[in-house]
């Protein structure tokens, strides 16, 4: 993946990064342990400190939502492909609109700890099979995205040390994975919140300052920045026009649209983001938090676009592409050029902390789903004590962390963006239809939920298996064989409609009497519960 690397940083910034990263980790672990649930109270473990102010909640949401892929991957995409990369950043921002307008408040009013609780409130009699299906889909999405984060940590390390030896690689994944498990299993939601907020503050400040620095260098004149970027992009003005990356053929254009669809719809259904929405104390606090998050996410994406353009304008496309073919190194190269070793170290520390925070949120969300939906409701049929469920949740966190580490070690060469995109596609085609139908469709039945959950999961996985990602091109996992009859790398354009269609079909085919009463649920969704 990476050709030359040691060029990104010198020894000084490597050491500084290490020291900074270590101090952030030690400080946050310490705080996480201090704020960890003291009593065996399951609500505190799942939801954390519920008296946080809207700004803090918004920061935590922003922290959960923006991963290292946005910081390194998207800026790299902007640096290499200009306009097409900017569209990708826009998708990340717009996806938060779905959360705000459609999902946040109804989910908060009808939910308790997991997505399964909302669906169980909607169809109480058939909740067990649906909870099982939800747990399976949540686990699939969270594990894939977790592996993407861990693989990303190896890729990040590569930029410091060059191609790492197997021992370094294993050490990196194991160390990051262990810290993630400690945040999630020991700290629970309070611990995850601490790291999310610290990461979000670092991210917002770091990227805004870098963007300001870039603009300052171009005399605060965006036109100068654009022309310098176009000059040094090696593509001239084409850099500022659509099509550099995805414009080769109709297939690649459709592929890009498919990706945008999965991002816009899938980010809104990621389990750790949904879980975060349940944390605020009241709907009023939730609303202000979500609006704060709109501003923060928008600001970070906007600044990331400027940083990406600045990387091309200052460093030049050739150096960026030579260092790392995917462009992931662009931010660090730019930092080195602008602020020397110190800024590089700050931004790489930020990248590692970002990885860590998102991975901790994911592990926690998957562990809650396993403990609450699978263990508490399906296996123990609601008879588990709080203490028992809490123990299972902690163990599940360890289990998922270890599973993620093992998969990351096997798939360390995989492209972390591809893994993340598959996770978005599954979230958009399996979790989103069930969520939206449960909230808003009167007739929705358990049969529809099961069909859309399993159908969405299977269709997106199968489409990727038979796509160029797995076979037929030189960059595939099996480059020598060819069973890729599906031409697109991103399954969203087919699997998302399939998920919605299957949910509709399952509902229409089931007996009208199977529809659970919707009135009470609807009143609760729009008005709230009596004891709220």
């Amino acid at each position, binding site marked *: 993946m990476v050709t030359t690397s040691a060029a990104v940083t010198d020894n000084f910034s490597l050491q500084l990064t290490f020291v900074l990263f270590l101090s952030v980790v030690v400080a946050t672990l310490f705080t996480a342990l201090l704020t960890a649930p003291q009593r065996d109270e399951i609500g505190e473990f799942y939801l954390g400190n519920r008296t*946080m102010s809207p700004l803090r909640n918004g920061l935590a949401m922003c922290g959960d939502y923006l991963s290292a892929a946005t910081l390194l991957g998207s800026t790299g995409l902007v640096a290499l492909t200009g306009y097409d990369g900017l569209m990708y950043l*826009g998708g990340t*921002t*717009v996806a938060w*609109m779905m959360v705000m307008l459609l999902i946040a408040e109804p989910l908060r009013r009808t939910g308790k700890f997991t997505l399964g609780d909302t669906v169980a409130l909607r169809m109480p009699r058939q909740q067990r099979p649906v909870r099982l299906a939800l747990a399976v889909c949540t686990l699939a999405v969270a594990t894939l995205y977790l592996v993407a984060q861990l693989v990303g940590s190896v890729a990040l390390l590569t930029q410091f040390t060059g191609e790492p030896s197997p021992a370094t690689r294993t050490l990196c994944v194991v160390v990051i994975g262990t810290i993630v498990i400690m945040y999630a299993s020991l700290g629970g939601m309070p611990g995850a919140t601490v790291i999310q907020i610290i990461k979000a503050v670092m991210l917002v400040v770091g990227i805004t300052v870098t963007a300001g620095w870039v603009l300052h260098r171009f005399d605060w004149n965006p036109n100068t920045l654009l022309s310098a970027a176009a000059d040094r992009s090696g593509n001239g003005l084409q850099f500022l*026009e659509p099509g550099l990356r995805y414009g080769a053929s109709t297939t690649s*254009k459709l592929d890009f649209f498919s990706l945008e669809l999965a991002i816009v719809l899938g980010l809104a259904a990621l389990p750790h983001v949904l879980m975060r929405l349940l944390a605020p104390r009241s709907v009023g606090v939730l609303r202000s938090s979500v609006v704060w998050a709109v*501003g923060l996410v928008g600001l970070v994406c906007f600044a990331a676009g400027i940083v990406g353009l600045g990387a091309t304008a200052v460093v030049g496309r050739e150096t960026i592409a030579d260092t790392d073919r995917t462009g992931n190194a662009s931010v660090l190269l730019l930092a080195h050029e602008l602020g020397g070793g110190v800024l590089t170290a700050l931004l790489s520390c930020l990248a590692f902390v970002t990885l860590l925070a998102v991975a901790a949120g994911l592990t926690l969300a998957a562990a809650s789903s396993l403990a609450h939906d699978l263990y508490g409701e399906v296996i123990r049929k609601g008879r588990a004590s709080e203490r028992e469920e809490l123990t299972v949740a902690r163990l599940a966190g360890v289990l998922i962390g270890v599973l993620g580490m093992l998969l990351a070690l096997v798939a360390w060469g995989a492209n972390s963006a591809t893994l993340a995109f598959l996770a978005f596609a599954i979230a958009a085609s399996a979790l989103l239809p069930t969520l939206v139908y449960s909230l808003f469709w009167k007739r929705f039945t358990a049969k529809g939920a099961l069909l859309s959950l399993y159908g969405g999961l299977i269709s997106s996985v199968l489409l990727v298996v038979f796509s160029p990602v797995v076979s037929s091109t030189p960059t595939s996992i099996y480059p020598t064989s060819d069973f890729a009859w599906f031409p697109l790398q991103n399954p969203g354009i087919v699997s998302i409609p399939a998920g919605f269609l299957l949910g509709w079909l399952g509902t229409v085919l089931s007996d009208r009497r199977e529809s659970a009463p919707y009135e*009470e649920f609807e009143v609760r969704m729009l*008005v709230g519960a009596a004891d709220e």
Partner: protein
Amino acid sequence: MPEFSPWPDDSSAFHAPQSRPISPQQISHDPEFRSLRRARLRFATRATALSVGAFLLYVLLSSFAPGVMNEPLIGHFTLGLALGLGQFVVMAVTAWRYATYMRTKVDPLADHFRSQLRHEPLRPRPAAQAQTPAPAQAQGTRGFPTW
């Protein structure tokens, strides 16, 4: 009618004076609840269609009508880049409209129905309530740590 009146507010003839909490089913059939539901859903679908739809349309236009998007405006700013910036403006306006709409149109009605569920003495109807400072707001700024 004073707020502490023991008699329920019967300005809406639909509710008989009660001595027990109203069930969610009863609320569900209240015409006012239906209009609340309609308004809430209509706003959510319209705003989502507008903001998400505008973005997906922008992606499609960029992919399949690059000629239009490459129209230069000022310097290196093309129509496409300007529309891209416009997405952020659309988002900001949507978020602002959403917060205002929910606060002024949805919350008063929802609070009203919730107090009925709880069987509290009924508050004055939303129209009267709108003049008093909204309690949810005061609650939001108090009781939190300092930042």
